[in-house]
């Protein structure tokens, strides 16, 4: 990489420790790259040069006092869904285009406490609703591998920023695939943790029972290091789970001998692209060579995960987004005539089409007379999907399959056809419905576009997932490929 800075968090941490460069220098390097390159990707909504420099100065001072940890002074990009005190936190929406959060999300506070430097806030689908990053009020993000294509979504800005080396690591949030799908489409690594591992306090809600924050990075090792700082119970999030502290990087170097991988038949279906099939089979060979055994398993209800997901997610969203009413914060229409006018115009102007579509679907699913047929039924399916996974994990340690059915698609190609767009989430939503951890790592390229390999684990098996991914990355170099445009 230019100017002699390494690209991964791990390597940068070594350089900072040895004094090869300071956090101020590393941060300035990234700020300069963002200024030079981001106009062609639109990965950032807000860049925070002054704030970042101040944090870098503080990090260098911490190091000088001998109080630094491995993350001290490492820059990161923060998805604009995480509230950041005094900084615009838009969630990709016109509704919050003027809203500076008055408090820090727990994730932001924890990364700050670890000494990390926030470069800025990354672009995303509006309120995390989308699989292409085209629903952002701040314009679509472009895929660094091909700027005519989408980066995936909703954490498309974070994925593009890491892929384009506009940040070594980034935060993301995953409600139905929003970390894993853009990671796959941008050729990086992304971890969706077990539901409850990462505090949701200050992470603006889309669908509360599915939302989970997680790290995005070039390598599984970097995911582990960042996840160490992000995970942990939070008294301000009743759904966060108290667990004894764990070092997720401790087991990375352990060999995979004896690891049992399951191939869900429903994810490896014949309909998938033959090139993708071939790529995935090659990844399987890598895992076999590392000592893992592979067998077929079944997730019989996989086919209903998309409808169940869209009912549950939209129902929760329709309620979560009621607070954007133009009364206390966010967008308010000009000269409201009365209360109904204030509500309807503020919301009509503040929300984009996809958000409105999902609010309507969710409202419908919860309405009197429809609740049993939609919301209750979806919750029942959710339990069945969860039971499928539990049954599968009785015989295997991890599941392996594709992250997405295709590589990055062209901007605009699915935007007018939401149903086709929703199918981009076919392999990712089941994990969220079940609350399981999963990650996506680069598995190769098809027509010069990256695709992802998804690993799914049982509850709280992040350490095993990261170990498997790290071992895989120690025998492959797909994750080290850099888009030409990121030069």
């Amino acid at each position, binding site marked *: 990489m230019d100017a002699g800075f390494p690209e991964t968090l791990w390597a940068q941490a070594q350089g900072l420790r040895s004094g090869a460069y300071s956090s101020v220098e590393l941060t300035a390097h990234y700020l300069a790259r963002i200024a030079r390159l981001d106009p062609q990707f639109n990965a950032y909504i807000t860049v925070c040069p002054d704030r970042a420099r101040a944090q870098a100065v503080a990090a260098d001072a911490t190091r000088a006092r001998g109080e630094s940890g491995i993350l001290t002074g490492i820059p990161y990009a923060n998805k604009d869904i995480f509230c950041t005190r005094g900084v615009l936190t838009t969630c990709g929406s016109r509704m919050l285009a003027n809203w500076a959060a008055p408090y820090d999300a727990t994730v932001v506070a924890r990364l700050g406490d670890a000494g990390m430097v926030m470069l800025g806030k990354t672009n995303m689908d509006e309120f995390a609703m989308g699989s292409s990053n085209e629903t952002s009020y701040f314009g679509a993000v472009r895929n660094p591998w091909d700027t005519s294509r989408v980066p995936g979504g909703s954490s498309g800005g974070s994925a593009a920023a890491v892929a384009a080396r506009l940040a070594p690591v980034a935060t993301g949030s995953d409600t139905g695939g929003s970390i894993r799908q853009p990671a796959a489409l941008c050729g990086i690594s992304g971890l969706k943790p077990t539901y409850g591992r990462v505090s949701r306090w200050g*992470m603006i809600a889309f669908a509360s029972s599915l939302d989970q924050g997680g790290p995005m990075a070039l390598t599984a090792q970097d995911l582990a290091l960042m996840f160490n700082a992000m995970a942990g119970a939070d008294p301000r*999030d009743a759904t966060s789970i108290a667990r004894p502290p764990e070092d997720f990087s401790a087991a990375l170097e352990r060999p995979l001998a004896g690891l049992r991988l399951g191939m869900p038949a429903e994810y490896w279906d014949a309909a998938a692209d033959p090139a993708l099939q071939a790529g995935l089979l090659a990844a399987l060979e890598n895992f076999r060579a590392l000592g893992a055994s592979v067998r077929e398993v079944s997730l019989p209800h996989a086919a209903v995960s998309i409808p169940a997901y869209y009912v549950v997610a939209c129902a929760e969203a*329709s309620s979560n987004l009621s607070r954007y009413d133009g009364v206390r914060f966010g967008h308010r229409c000009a000269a409201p005539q009365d209360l109904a006018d204030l*509500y309807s115009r503020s919301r009509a102007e503040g929300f984009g089409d996809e958000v409105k579509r999902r609010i309507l679907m969710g409202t419908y699913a919860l309405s009197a007379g429809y609740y049993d047929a939609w919301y209750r039924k979806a919750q029942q399916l959710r339990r069945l999907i969860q039971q499928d996974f539990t049954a599968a994990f009785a015989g295997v340690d991890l599941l392996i399959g594709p992250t997405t059915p295709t590589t990055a698609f062209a901007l605009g190609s699915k935007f007018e056809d939401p149903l086709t767009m929703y199918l981009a989430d076919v392999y990712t939503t089941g994990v969220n419905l079940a609350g399981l951890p999963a990650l996506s790592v680069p598995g190769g390229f098809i027509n010069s576009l990256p695709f992802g390999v998804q690993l799914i684990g049982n509850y709280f098996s992040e350490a095993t997932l990261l170990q498997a991914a790290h071992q895989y990355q120690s025998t492959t170099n797909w994750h080290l490929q850099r888009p030409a445009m990121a030069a």
Partner: protein
Amino acid sequence: MGWETVIGLEIHVQLATVSKIFSGAATRYGAQPNTQACAVDLGLPGVLPVLNARVVEMAITLGLALEARIAPVSFFARKNYFYPDLPKGYQISQYEDPIVEHGRLTIRLGDGRDKEIRIRRAHLEEDAGKSVHDAFPGATGIDLNRTGTPLLEVVSEPDLSSSQEAALFMRKMHALVRYLGICDGNMQEGSFRCDANVSVRRAGAAALGTRAEIKNINSFRYVEKAIDYEVERQIDLLENGGKVVQETRLYDSDKDETRSMRGKEDAHDYRYFPDPDLLPIIVTPAQIEALKRLLPELPGARAIRYCQEFGLAPADAEPLSQDRSLADYFEALAGSCGDPRQAANWLNGEVAATLNRQGTTIDLCPVPAASLGALLRRISDGTLSASLAKQVFEVMWTQRSEPDAVIEARNLRQVNDGDALLALVETVLAESPEQVAQYRAGKEKVFGYFVGQIMKRSQGRANPQQLADLLRTRLAPP
């Protein structure tokens, strides 16, 4: 054929916690607008509710006192509707699975009979904020201090058959929640209010009539008046060939009438669904047992004990046992003076009258039970007559002093000395030959004149019983 009234009450009990049900903000009443609303109460993007464990304990406590079933698992749901003083656009409440179900509360009717009123359920929820419509011209102010204040909504079965029964039930519940210490019971501040579901039907009819719901009644008097008005309105309507429509009505105490607020067709579809931000409330048998042990002796049991243990009449025991502070005071007083019946008489008489006159409650009584007990002992040992004791009590109240000090300082000791009394009697009789003659001639009313004269000369300190005996002896025909 006559009409029958059917009433069910929904009572909103504001739980007396220090902080709110889902946030750390204070619940204190009367603060400057919006100074007790934190990020959670404001419903800012990204905030999450965390349940205040105290409210669960309080709900269980009331459930136990109502002999209800405590749900081992209950859930919070979101009730969705838009209103400016509802920041999140939904209220967190309990819907399908409330924490308390199937309880009962017995009321004593005017004729002395007891009637059991079934409690359908009691559920936890957060209060909304307040819209202030008259503070700003052309605009509505929003005060979110009340947002997130914990409420327990207690719903009765339609077992009440008159406005009087409804008021008795409301009073009984009011006394109970205060007794349990889970609500301050302040009705002016809205800490205890109710909605009344009222319908009428032909006497003996099996099916219920169409009901109207009267919202937000905040006094015992108004619940009676509002229901009376509503019952009359419905009967008038039906007798004139009209129909009662299901609707929500508001009671206007100035005009003493109920008015339609919104009809059934305007009813919201609240789209209830389980709140994904909150875990189910799990109540273990051990937790219920622990709270049961902490449960105070309840008013009914206490009244029965006062009758059995202290020999009080039910009419005396009842008022002493309804308020926990009063009952505690009574027991301390009975112990201190050694005579429970005397203690009961004083509390139900002089003390109740004084509290009432001063507009205060036993908690703020300036005379501690031990001091009042010392005073009552001075009656028993003859130092004071009942009327002298009342004088001493008055001084104790205003000066917060001990009875012996007052007796000493004001020289209020009763004159029990026979010789001294006899001397007084002799003096007065000697000075009133005319009256003596009248009395002896059969005009017995004059007796009071002698008592008055002697009391005057002794500054009211003469032992009234001894005095009467002496007078009678001396006035007897020679």
